[in-house]
């Protein structure tokens, strides 16, 4: 079992790498700031909700794009939802793909949409894994009796 300072440093580095590689942006920081004693599980709560929502949306999108006549309006609204929620938690790479996705929707470009769906799925899974790892690390620190260091 690693010591608390070690784990804390690890967490800082890991979080910094997430920002550097643009998985996350400032919005996630804001989110972390909203968490306080009165609401200690706020970030995990929001992110879990995001995971839930996203999986539903991805399923919906996959189904919608498999239809014989694709309802682009519906696809667009799904993507919009996805874009909104991802930007709310600061998963900016997902948000960026969503922007492209919506452009393809406007053009009614099925190939582009399918390609974007794959991309957005990929990015989502990436960010999910990263966030889960982050939470695990935080959990470890808390279990070891340390506190979560705040990023500036």
């Amino acid at each position, binding site marked *: 079992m690693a010591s608390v300072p070690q784990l804390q440093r690890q967490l800082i580095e890991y979080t910094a790498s997430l920002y550097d590689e643009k998985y996350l942006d400032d919005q996630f920081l804001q*989110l972390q700031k*909203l968490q306080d004693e*009165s*609401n200690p599980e706020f970030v995990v709560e929001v992110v879990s909700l*995001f995971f839930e929502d996203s999986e539903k949306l991805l399923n919906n999108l996959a189904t919608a794009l498999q239809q014989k006549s694709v309802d682009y309006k519906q696809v667009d609204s799904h993507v919009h*939802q996805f874009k909104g929620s991802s930007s*709310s938690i600061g998963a900016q790479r997902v948000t960026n793909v969503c922007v492209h996705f919506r452009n393809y929707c406007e053009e009614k470009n099925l190939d582009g949409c399918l390609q974007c769906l794959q991309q957005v799925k990929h990015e989502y899974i990436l960010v999910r894994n990263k966030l889960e790892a982050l939470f695990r690390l935080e959990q470890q620190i808390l279990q070891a009796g340390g506190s979560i260091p705040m990023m500036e």
Partner: protein
Amino acid sequence: MSFIHLIGFGLKVGHLLLMLCYSFLTVISLNSFINDSQMKPNKSRKIWVKFLEIFSSKTSKIHHYYQYIGSAKFRKTWWRKLLILWIAFGTILALWIFWYLRSEALEKRKETLANMCDERARMLQDQFNVSMNHVQAMSILISTFHHGKNPSAIDQETFAKYTERTAFERPLTSGVAYAVRVLDSEREQFEKQQGWTIKKMTPVNKDKYNPEELEPSPVQPEYAPVIFAQDTVAHVISLDMLTGKEDRENVLRARALGKGVLTAPLALIKSNRLGVILTFAVYKRDLPPNATPEERIEATDGYLGGVFDIESLVEKLLQQLASKQTIYVNVFDTTNISNPISMYGIDVLDTGLQHISPLNFGDPSRKHEMRCRFKQKQPWQILAISASFGIFVITLLVGHIFHATVNRITKVEDDYKKMLDLKKRAEEADVAKSEFLANVSHEIRTPMTGVLGMLDTLMDTNLDVTQQDHVRIAQASGKALVSLINAVLDKAKIESGTIELEAVRFNLWEILDDLAAYISAKVPETLIGDPGRFRQIITNLVGNSMKFTKKGHIFVTVHLLEEVMKSIDAEPEPSSNDTLSGLPVADRNRSWEGFRPAGQIVCPPESITLIISVEDTGVGIPLDAQPRIFTPYMQVGPSIYHGGTGIGLSISKYLVNLMNGEIGFDSVPQIGSTFTFTAVFSNPNEQQINGQSMSEFCNMQAVVVDPRPIRAEVSRCHIQQLGMHVEIVSSLTSMLTMLTNGSQTVHFVLIEEEVWDQDLSNSVEFSYKLRNLNQEISPKLFLLSNSISNGPHQNNKPTVITKPLRISMLAASLQRAMGDNKSNSSNGEVPKLSLSKLLIGRKILVVDDNNVNLLVAAGALKKYGADVVCADNGRKAIALLKPPHLFDACFMDIQMPEMDGFEATKKIREIEHSVNFRIKNGSLSLQDYADISNWHVPILAMTADVIQATHERCLRSGMDGYVSKPFEANQLYQEVSRFFL
């Protein structure tokens, strides 16, 4: 004369050819010019091209040909051929001119000769004819007076006298004699009558002519003895003419023809000179002109002969004529063409030219001619030779010029190509260098972030003092390295032209907070532009100032350009000591002297031009270095003294240019420098009042005590940012008077440390008086200090705020003071963030279809103490928002399925309207609606895209404002404060 003409002609020809040569070259260069202009179409060039096209429409082939000429190798060989051709042409021309002139001269000479010869021949002929006529006249005389009279009226004596006296009439004759026809039957009687015998003509001994020795004539059918003779030829008397071979023939022909007849040239008897004898027949009666020879022979009485001594006579004749020396004259008897007999003249060498004039002496059976030659051969044709030589020389000269020109052009073109090549290579190298720099800088930056991050982590561990010091140094060095790399990267970006400016909304105060800049009140708080780059320029200038300034101040001011331009005209120059630190500075106005006047800058109307000055009291820039200051890599003095790469200013200049601004400076060595630049931003058109952001200090009163106006102005500028009213007084005494007399409450007094230290006892007294003022809250006292290091420690010294004044720090200091105040007076109330104050306990409805968003927004509002209810679509929102309202405000997402935010808001407003209407009508009781007759719940839109159109649409739909999503504390505060204050 003609020689000069010729030279002139030659020169003209040469000039013409030279012009031709030039025009030829010009056409070539124009041609290349056309090629150029085709690549880069340009308006003015197009006109030229058009002009040329018109000019050369007919010679498009030639143009094509010129383009072909463009290849250097071809041109070279072709021009060499042309040169050879030209020289050949010149040589031929020269030869032709030589020949032409020579033949002309020859022609002229021939003509002269012909004229002279003809003249002589005519004269000779005329004189001969005159003599002949006279001889004929004499024959008639004899016929009349000798044969017509009986006895004869003429004897030898009379004849001799007469002929002697009329000799001038016969200029060509040396003598005349008359022979009578005597038949053999009459001989004896005739000899008797004359007293001498008829003698035979025997020219045996020419030297000693003795008539006595002559033999008598042999017996013949007839004789022709001479009876009369001129004295000059008296020796021929009694000689029988028929015995001489030539004479006999002559006599016989003369009597048969009835005309004058000439002998061939013969040696004259006695004189032995060459002569001809003219013989006329004397007839007994007049004969008709068509009489037959027989009739004529039968009628013959005698023969009159004239001796022509041609040699002497011609000599005499020629003596009378001019220019006798120039020509030789020969007279020939050419009766026998194959063997002409020379009658006059000597045989001379052939001088080439000869002219022959025919002579007619009246005897058709004899032919004579005169041949003339020049005594001298034709002289050298100097004119022809020099003219042709001149032309040849001109040809060579022109050829040489042509050759030299072609060589020169080739050389220049070769050089040009070489230069182009070198230039291209240099440019490529430059680009490669920039790329390399950019790459390397970028590559260095990545590991450096790692290094710095690790150093940060290292700082957090347990280190002793020395270790901490080392880490701090390492960190500082690392940061310096990163900033240096950033500068190099910027430079590389500038060189490759890939630098671009952002256009984002930013707060000027936030950007410049830590620089403690003075910002004019007229400058809007929020601008659209590139804050990072803007800050970079200022930081760079300030950084430079810091490097070179050891004492005094560095002062950053921000104004509107119009403001400054106006003040130049209006205000007189402030006194040189009225500066931030009291030290003299360089003249700021001079630093923007070179800028374009404000009126000339073309900007869109909503744009704002700021003018920023950075003033320092450093060492200044040496005068000789001033012109080069913006050149890249240029440094004043060796860089080891101050460090730096020397590219900061050039980057700044470039960035300023990108912002449509200008940069300039004024510097006085040992006094300081002032750099000034302008930058154009756009105005977001938001109506904002400065200083509303920090509401705690709103409407509070502060007083700054500072005798120096500029420094006081800067302090005021910063304190005003907190929303306070600021007054400036120059001394503590006036401060006191103001406090005792003034009705206003003064919350804060800020005193310049310098004033405080001036008279410590006075100051302490002042602070005492201040505390005992008869007011509800006694004013808080602060000192404004330039440096952290305090002077002698004093017990009663008030709180010190270190300058430069930063809003955040100022606010913190003032808050602390107020907090102390409150903790003393009230029951330990903890000062809270202004936003929390507004939102605490408020009931707020958040509407968003996106669960995650909903949760985040709710979380944010809850954080500020609000009581949040969520709804996930517009319908639910409408259901919840019916008067009487349970909520203090509603945040609504715009884009939602089924019913979007605009529609939902419209519906809510309709319901509110109808309720309000009915309350007025009285159909609804006021009591049921909590005594409120005008229901209007604040609805704020939440949107991710903050654009003007959305804002307008929000207002049209009945919304009260909008906030960006995700929430931004400042903006949220501004919007919410409109309803909850």
